[in-house]
């Protein structure tokens, strides 16, 4: 078992996966891509839907861009990324509307904002355009998972404090007084700042 774990460290796919989830976690280290999700991550359901959306769009567009990377002229690569990402976002939006109309209703325009999520574009530019399809897909999956993880942790805190429930299951008793502030913007800001602070102390990643 130990031998297997040691050998895993020399596999490229494993390194790519670990970097995306922990070492280069897009939210904690670079603080990218929270724009489209912080407002709707006040319920665990929403956070899961948004996380799946970002992960899927990132994976599909990274894979597609890696597939055609030798055909994209470098002057127009940004526009190419935009078109590919927009297409996959539209596909995801249509899926969400068909599968869970009530979540799609709650997320509203924020699903479309996955396009401008810096993570999707960032992975395409930094990784997919110079790596083969399989590593690009793993890299995109890892970034998406790192992102989803942060969203879910934040939404658990926020839903518990603002509603006394998790995934709409009432956990705290009737005498619990809801902190409505955690369901709206200020709560989101405070929770993410504490989260970044905690993780930075833990990972010893500081900025001066």
């Amino acid at each position: 078992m130990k031998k297997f774990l040691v050998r895993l460290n020399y596999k490229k796919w494993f390194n790519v996966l670990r970097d995306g989830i922990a070492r280069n976690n897009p939210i904690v280290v670079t603080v990218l891509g929270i724009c489209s999700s912080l407002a709707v991550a006040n319920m665990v359901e929403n956070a899961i839907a948004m996380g799946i959306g970002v992960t899927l769009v990132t994976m599909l567009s990274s894979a597609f861009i890696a597939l055609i990377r030798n055909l994209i002229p470098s002057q127009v690569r940004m526009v190419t990324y935009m078109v590919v990402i927009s297409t996959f976002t539209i596909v995801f939006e249509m899926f969400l509307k068909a599968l869970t109309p009530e979540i799609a209703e709650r997320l509203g325009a924020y699903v479309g904002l996955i396009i401008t999520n810096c993570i999707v574009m960032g992975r395409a530019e930094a990784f997919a355009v110079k790596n083969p399809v399989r590593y690009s897909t793993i890299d995109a999956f890892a970034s998406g998972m790192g992102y989803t993880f942060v969203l879910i942790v934040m939404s658990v805190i926020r839903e518990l404090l603002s509603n006394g429930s998790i995934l709409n299951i009432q956990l705290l008793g009737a005498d619990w007084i809801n902190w409505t502030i955690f369901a709206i913007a200020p709560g989101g800001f405070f929770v993410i700042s504490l989260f970044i602070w905690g993780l930075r102390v833990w990972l010893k990643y500081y900025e001066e």
Partner: protein
Amino acid sequence: MVSITVLIEIFIASLLPFNIALASILGMCPLIAISTNVTNAKGMGLAVVLVTTLTAAINWPIYEFLKWSGTDTLDLLVFMITIAASVQFLELAMQKFLPALYNAFGIYLPLITVNCIVLAVSLFFVNYDYGFLETVVFALGSSLGWAFAIVLLSGIREKLSVIADLPRGLKGKAIAFVLLGILALAFIGFAGIARVDPIQ
């Protein structure tokens, strides 16, 4: 024809109580990255106001055309192309006719293409069924609100970097989010100012 009072209410509502940065939490990446000094924040704010209002005005007739031709599922793709194209065009035009302003904006203009709020304003007017004038006023109010937020934040951060003795992990981005949370709390105080609710 929309009455002038409705337009004023939309403007006030999108500027203060439903501020796009502090209530809808949009445009965070540039808000955090560029708010370290007031001069840069002002430049970025101005550029955002210009681009957002312009693209919303261009996107409205385009969306009407999409609706007319029954292809409005493609709205995201078309909006993105409009935004990218108009930013590029604005850059070229300013370089040619207003070089002083172009130099002042510097790198902020191309960065705006990936700014969430430009796309968000276009998507919001679709959701609320706004007419043309309402769209332009809403875009102007939202982007001015964003510019207001970034200037406020950068002012506080500039002072804070001189006087405050913060824990190491809180420096930089984490403290910026704490400040944004306090600003957002303050902006809740404006809630009763406008009757209309542009962001449901």
